[in-house]
């Protein structure tokens, strides 16, 4: 049951081959992690999958449909939503409003309906609000509903960003370094949150530097080095993989 399939994808920036002939699959309902040293091409790969960049070569399929030529917006509409390494919440908007934006793809009111304040939009707005509160309560951030999102503590901003993504009801959630900047307690909470999200039926693909988190929660790990895949296996096997150890710790070890 493959949800996402990356086939022979390459991306070059000038003289730098950021991603080179890379292939892997993400199974429905699983948590997959992308790891690798700095500059291995993880973020580029994320951008390619989520429609922020176009691959030079190769194909990406989401639910058997080609998505490598689509924009980030079209990809989101199909059920693949991402978060950002550097949190990108909407400034000057409350936590509630940020999450409500996540309901965009599941609502319809356009310019005309909005301007005329047509009756069908009232019920729609109410449902958006209810669903947003439901999400905030499940994440434990409902108390901050009216707070400006960017004024929250860093760890809570990450939770809001994930809540905004969950509001889209994605089939695949892409998390770009969800534990970056979090302390150990917050990282553990993040790990539990990701497992909970997976248990609700959402497939998760994450890029992460925190090895203990990756090893604890992932079903499978893909290791990148210089834009190429050097290993793909279960966490325990990855930890014993000689090639991975060499890449991470250097040749002399």
């Amino acid at each position, binding site marked *: 049951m493959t949800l996402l399939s990356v086939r022979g994808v390459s991306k070059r920036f000038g003289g730098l081959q950021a991603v080179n002939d890379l292939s892997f699959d993400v199974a429905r309902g699983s948590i997959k992690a992308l790891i690798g040293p700095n500059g291995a091409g993880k973020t580029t790969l994320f951008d390619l999958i989520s429609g922020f960049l176009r691959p030079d070569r190769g194909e990406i399929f989401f639910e058997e449909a080609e998505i490598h030529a689509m924009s980030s917006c079209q990809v*989101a509409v199909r059920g693949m939503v991402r978060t950002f390494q550097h949190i990108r919440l909407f400034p*000057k908007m409350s936590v509630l409003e940020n999450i409500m*934006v996540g309901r965009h793809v599941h609502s319809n009111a356009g310019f005309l309906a*909005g301007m005329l304040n047509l009756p069908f939009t009232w019920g729609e707005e109410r449902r958006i609000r209810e669903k947003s509160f439901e999400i905030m309560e499940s994440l434990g951030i409902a108390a901050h509903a009216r707070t400006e999102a960017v004024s929250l503590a860093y760890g809570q901003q990450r939770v809001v960003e994930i809540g905004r993504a969950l509001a889209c009801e994605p089939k695949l959630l892409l998390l770009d370094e969800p534990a970056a900047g979090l302390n150990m307690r917050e990282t553990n909470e993040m790990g539990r949150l990701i497992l909970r999200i997976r248990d609700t039926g959402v497939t998760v693909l994450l890029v992460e530097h925190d090895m203990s988190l990756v090893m604890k929660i992932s079903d499978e790990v893909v290791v990148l080095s210089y834009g190429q895949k050097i290993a793909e296996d279960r966490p325990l096997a990855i930890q014993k993989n000689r090639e991975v150890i060499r890449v991470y710790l250097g040749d002399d070890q």
Partner: protein
Amino acid sequence: MARRYLPVAAFAGLIVAIQLATLFTGTAYHLTQLTMTAYYSLIIVGLCMLIGYAGQISLGHAGFFAIGGYVAAFLTTWNLKPHPGAFVSLLGKSGALVARPDAYGVSLLTVHPWLACAAAILLTVVIAYLVGGPVLKLKGHYLAMATLGFGIIVYRMVLGTEFLGAADGISDVPGFPLLSGMVITGNSSARVSNYYLAWGLVVLGMVLLLNLVHSRVGRALAAVHGAEDAAGAMGIPTARYKLNTFVLSAVFASLAGVLLTHYNGGIGPSEAGVMKSVRYVAIVAIGGMANLWGALSMSLVLNYLSLRGYFGTYDDAVFGVILILIMLFAPDGLLRRHLLSDLKRAVSRNPAEEEAP
């Protein structure tokens, strides 16, 4: 809901109060400038939606005003009598033409103002989509320059086009019969009704835009304004939303152009001038950028003062200076939405805290 419409009711009350004040002080002639102010305010609130809420600048909105005004002026003054033909007779049979005598009693056959208005709006929509499509891919200074270029093109075209009256513009534009007994015209006998009609349209425009701001689309626009890539990743078609807002604001400007042209009885190339566009942006800026009420109140005051001639020969300079000062000292605009809470915070802030590193 009440919080949204209460200010609208208060504003409507202000409009009535101003009219009553002119009635009792015997200064009803002020209503003429106030009516013109209303039409300019239509451009301002539309532009405020574009600049403040969608986060896109336009230095070309006088161009859209001129497109509306000139199309209406041309079609309602162009005598079709000397051009009989199948198309003209078809238009005549379908009631799209009106026969009327001009100022010298010569009988004219011209396009009905309703049809001219529809044509003006339609042309504006087409041009706004054609211009906005490529131009809105630009950001910041580049978008400002590109829209400025559009404004200059419109200005040079109306200035250099013979059938649009070149430097003289088009005059003798008839009134716009809106409803029975309700005509948009500068005749002093219809001054009060035109005052209320014009401000009624502004109030209607405000209600539409306030609704939009508080809708799903308004939330999406705020998201696009705040973090465009994140908004895209949430499935918001950012380019289309920016373009739609651009076209919407162009329609507001164009409609203002049509109606003010009928009210003034003509239009000249100065209405398409770049300084007009700068003025509109300056008013939106001083009004607080993302603040429809701020923009409207500043428009009411500044347009009125300008039209009454208080700024004299420094008219354009005043708006240029306003824009410079705003950009230097309050780039978020003067009457911005969080002004009160910001001030409270500044006053209540502990001075010791501020000195801490």
